[in-house]
């Protein structure tokens, strides 16, 4: 395998370590799971995470992961993406994967910036964020991925922090164990292109929720607790929402080419 090429101090290192820990917790060896990667700094992990994996395209992890899971339900299938890939380019896939509820886990490295393309505004960048693509500051509101996922019907919605490995490992483990579509949005400081949302900035604001919000509405309310538009709210981490819902899984495919019967209607 190759050596990690992330910048020294990058939040991705923490996510990488937590993911390896989670695989150990789950006793998943390199061949028992398929990790479907996006394109971006986050997904370059593909080259140094020794798991069977499929490096797909920018924004396309979820449909590829869905196809794999549908055909081989025995595999644990994870998608790993950045906020750009998953909330921008692949936003439509996220909505549909959430309502569809295959047994998949989505891990999003949310650094609120496009890192691999060297520093443009992402869907989760705060309003006013100055970047190479928004020199005067971003006009848009930041997308709230947790609120979106809850509203769209994700059956497991959580937020972790790249600077808290035990907590993040636990979230990842629970997400994979969850039967249904699970998303873990991970706050990931980008040391090169986002000098606002730094490790320190997060540490000052983050707090762990003591218990899961009681229902979907309460979960949404919690999800909306995020610094936005000049406000300086605290940032809850943990599991926001979890429910048992029927999982989409067609029966194992068996090839039955009975041409006589299938063609009878054309006679």
């Amino acid at each position, binding site marked *: *395998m*190759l050596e990690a090429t992330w910048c020294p101090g990058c939040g991705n290192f923490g996510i990488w370590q937590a993911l390896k820990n989670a695989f150990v917790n789950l006793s998943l*060896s*390199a*061949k*028992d799971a*398929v990790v*479907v990667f996006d*394109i971006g700094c986050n997904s*370059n992990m*593909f*080259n140094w995470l*020794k*798991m*069977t*994996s*499929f*490096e*797909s*395209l920018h924004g*396309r992890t*979820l*449909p*590829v*992961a*869905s*196809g*794999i*899971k*549908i*055909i*081989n339900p*025995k*595999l644990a299938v994870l998608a790993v993406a950045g906020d750009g890939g998953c909330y921008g380019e692949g936003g*439509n*896939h996220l*909505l*549909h994967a959430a309502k569809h509820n295959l047994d998949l886990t989505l891990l999003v490295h949310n650094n609120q910036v496009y890192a691999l393309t060297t520093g443009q505004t992402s869907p989760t960048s705060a309003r006013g964020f100055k970047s190479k693509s928004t020199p005067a500051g971003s006009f848009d509101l930041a997308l709230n991925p947790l609120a979106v996922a809850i509203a769209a019907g994700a059956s497991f919605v959580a937020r972790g922090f790249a600077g808290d490995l035990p907590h993040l490992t636990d979230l990842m483990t629970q997400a994979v164990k969850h039967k249904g579509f699970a998303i873990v949005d991970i706050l990931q400081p980008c040391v090169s292109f986002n000098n606002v949302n730094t490790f320190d900035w997060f540490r000052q604001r983050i707090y762990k929720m003591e218990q899961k919000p009681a229902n979907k509405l309460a979960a949404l309310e919690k999800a909306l607790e995020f610094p936005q538009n000049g406000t300086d709210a605290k940032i809850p981490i943990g599991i926001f929402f979890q429910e048992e819902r029927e999982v989409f899984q*067609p029966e194992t*495919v*068996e*090839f*039955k*080419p*009975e*041409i006589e*019967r*299938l*063609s009878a209607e*054309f*006679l």
Partner: protein
Amino acid sequence: MEKSITWKIGGPAGFGIMVSGTILAKAFARAGLYLASTTEYPSLIRGGHNTYIIRASAEEIFSLIFSVDLLVALNQETIILHKDELSQGAGLIYDSEDPEIGKDLLPEANCHLFPVPLVKLATQDGGAKLMMNNVALGSSWAVMNLPFEILAGVVADVFNKKGEEIIKENLQAAKAGFEYIKKNFPHDFDYQLHEGQAPKRLVLSGNEAIGLGAIMAGLGFAALYPMTPINGLLQFLASKSEEAGFVFKQPEDEIAGINMAIGASYAGARSLVATSGGGFSLMTEAYSMAAMTETPLVVVMGIRPGPSSGLPTWTGQGDLKFVLGASPGDFTRIVLTPGDPQECFELTQVAFNLADRYQTPVILLVDKFLCESLGTIEKAKIATERIAIDRGKLLDLSAADYKRYQITEDGISPRILPGKIFFVTDSYEHDEMGLATEDASMIKKMVEKRGRKFSLLEKEVPEPQLFGDQDAEITLVGWGSTKGAAREAIGRLKTQHVGLKINYLHLNWINPFPKEAVTKILSKAKKIISCEGNATGQMAGFLREQTGVEIKKQILKYDGRAFFPEDIIEGVKKYA
């Protein structure tokens, strides 16, 4: 006198035009007759004028012709729009009690009028007005002098799922129409058909033939987002998935569909997607990923005229260059172009084998006319011409040092399924392990590895089909659904000009292109004329690129309509 009959029915949408056409086509096939047929309709759900046209003959025919011998008008608009298409001595069935159909509408000379109280007969035993199409079918059948039991058998089968009562009502209406003609217009028609000797055949659309072929090829996963003209395939596959044991999924968009299919294929299922130009535009990104990750995939690309949303329900062949160049990157796009349902059935199976053997996506390029027109497949051939499933180098390895992209002599690396051992699959350029690389020598090796498999494939491209005289003065060249009209045209030209040597070169492998065979065939012809359903001669351009042969004489049609033999005959005469 023509030995074939062309029957046409026209009326407002919602009056059972489609089902009438299907019933009559099957009835012709059961009567041992050869047939060609299609439907035309505007892109509307309600309202608008729909037609169905079928040509039947005791002798083998390959396509429709322009003139109509028996027209069924379910409303006055049909008469207005189509009376000029009637042949000498043609018949016209219309509702004698429709107040809108005045004398002034009726064709004047050389036409047999069959005024039948269609609505009255449909409703006389408490049936619905909508049954008038069945009355018309029964009347048509009687005019053509074919036995009622054959028609009745098809009606019973088509409505089988709807229950006894519905079958009875439909049969009653058809019988009423049949008897009305027998009683009021005995022996009144020039075009009498007799049961023929054609072998037993399935009557199905190109879409359905592709679906059957895919199922026979061991389809495991299909994701189709609706778009004309592949909706027939979508509907067929959706209805057969349980029975045939594959997964059908309607994705949120074409992008999701093709990516899911790639995931499913990677996990081991033979996978298919289908769309038209707009949808394929969205798919091209992932199409390229299938090439780079070396994942097998079959893409059915149904052409409708463009650009943009173009003419959703009409036909054309304007997307050839698009698929040949679709997607970023330098790789061979395998493009197969069947010309009739039989070829759809066969080439779909071939496509799955090619996809697996060469670990690459394959495009089956069809046009709306082929997708939605009913044609036939010989019943005996669906079993005998079944192509053995060849999954290529899909192995059950457990070697610890497995390399997904191992550099091999033939360019094909052994493939295994996830879950067996650790390996990685990469959409970036990669090394043998599958890890991203930017190393110049490795990049070169990988490009060459993928190139070698396409060189290998080039060697197995079959010779194209040549219909007509071996040595001809005039060689017509075409692809896709032009096949039928061109075959019909060369037959007619030979009857009209005794001694004329003419043939038709049908291209159903566009890429890799059968360079040598085509060059050899064309070098013998004095006059080469290409026939294409586009305005720019895309195939002729590609053919020149592949062979150096320049075809200057081109018959191009781009009005949304398929080729009729008459178009080709006229074109050939222009160049004579």
